[in-house]
C-alpha cells in the first residue's frame, strides 16, 4: 500500500455544521448522557479599575465613622471616598457659580 494517488480517491462527505444541526446533535447526545464535561474555569474576580491607592491618616473617630458608613452602605471605603469627592466637587462648582467665577 503506497502512493498518494491512492489517497486521491478518498472523499469526505459534505457535512453541514449549522447551529441548528449542532443543537440537534447535542440533544441526541444528552439523551445518552453526553453532557458538557468541559472543565470549568476557576472563578476569578475581575480586576478592579480602582488602581490608585491613597494613604490618608485621619483621626480615629473619623476613620471609624467612614468605615462604619461604607459598611452600612455596602460599598468599599474607596467608593465612599469617591462619593465624598464628587460631593466636594459639586460643592466647589456651586460655590464658584454663586461667586460668578
Amino acid at each position, binding site marked *: *500500500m503506497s502512493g498518494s494517488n491512492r489517497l486521491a480517491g478518498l*472523499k469526505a462527505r459534505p457535512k453541514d455544521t449549522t447551529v441548528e444541526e*449542532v443543537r440537534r*446533535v447535542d440533544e*441526541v447526545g444528552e439523551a445518552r448522557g*453526553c453532557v458538557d464535561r468541559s472543565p470549568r474555569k476557576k472563578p476569578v474576580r475581575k480586576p478592579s479599575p480602582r488602581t490608585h491607592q491613597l494613604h490618608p491618616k485621619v483621626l480615629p473617630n473619623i476613620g471609624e465613622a467612614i468605615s462604619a458608613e461604607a459598611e452600612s452602605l455596602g460599598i468599599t471605603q474607596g467608593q465612599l471616598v469617591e462619593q465624598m469627592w464628587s460631593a466636594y466637587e459639586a460643592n466647589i462648582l456651586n460655590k464658584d457659580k454663586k461667586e460668578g467665577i
Partner: protein
Amino acid sequence: MPVIVMASPKGGGGKSTCAVLLASEFARMGADVTVLDCDPNKSLTRWASHGLPTGVVLKSDIGRSEIVPTIRSADGDGKIVIVDLEGVASQLVSRAISQADLVIVPMQPTALDAEIGSEALALVKEEEEALGRTIRHAVVLTKTSAAVKSRVQKELEGQLSGAGIDMIEPSLVARAAFSEIFAYGGDLTAMMNDPDMVTGGKVDKALINARAFTEAVYERLK
C-alpha cells in the same frame, strides 16, 4: 478528505492506539494527517512529544466548543483528520461523531467492552436519524490473541455481525510494539529499524497487522 473518529465511552479500549497506527500509516502513504487529541489523558500528545512521523501534525487541548471548527479547519485536499476522543460520554464526543466520515469503535473482546462500546454505536445510529444522513461506522476488536481466537471473541463477533455491525478485519492483536510506540514516538517502521528501541515483541508482526488494519480502514473510506 475524510475525517476518522475513534469513539468509545470505555477507557483503555484502544482508541489512541488505533489513532496512532492509522496516522502513521496514512502519512507513510503520502497523506497530510492531522491528529486531534481530545483525550484529557493526552496519550497522543505524549506520543508526539517523542517525535511525530513525517506528514503528521498534532493538535491538542480541544474542547467542546472548538471541536467542530477545528475539524473543519483541518480538513482539506490531501488531508486526513483523525480524532482521538475521551473515553466518556460527552458533548465533545457527540459533536465529533457528527463530523465523521468513519467512526471506529475499538473494543476488546470482552463482554464489558462490548456492552459499553455498544453505547457508542447506539449514539451514532441516533445521530444518523437526527441528521438525516448516514455516518459510516465500524467496530475493530483490539488486544486480541495472536495465537487463538477465544470463545468470547467468536461469540462477540457473531453477535456484532448478526446485528449488522461492520467489523474491521484484521483485529489488532495484543503486541508490545503497539504499547511501546507511545514511549518512543514516531512509527512502527522507525521502531523496527532502530536497534536502540527495545519492545520485547515482534515489531515486524505488529507492522504487518497495522498495515492490514489501515488497508481495511482505507477500503471503507473510498
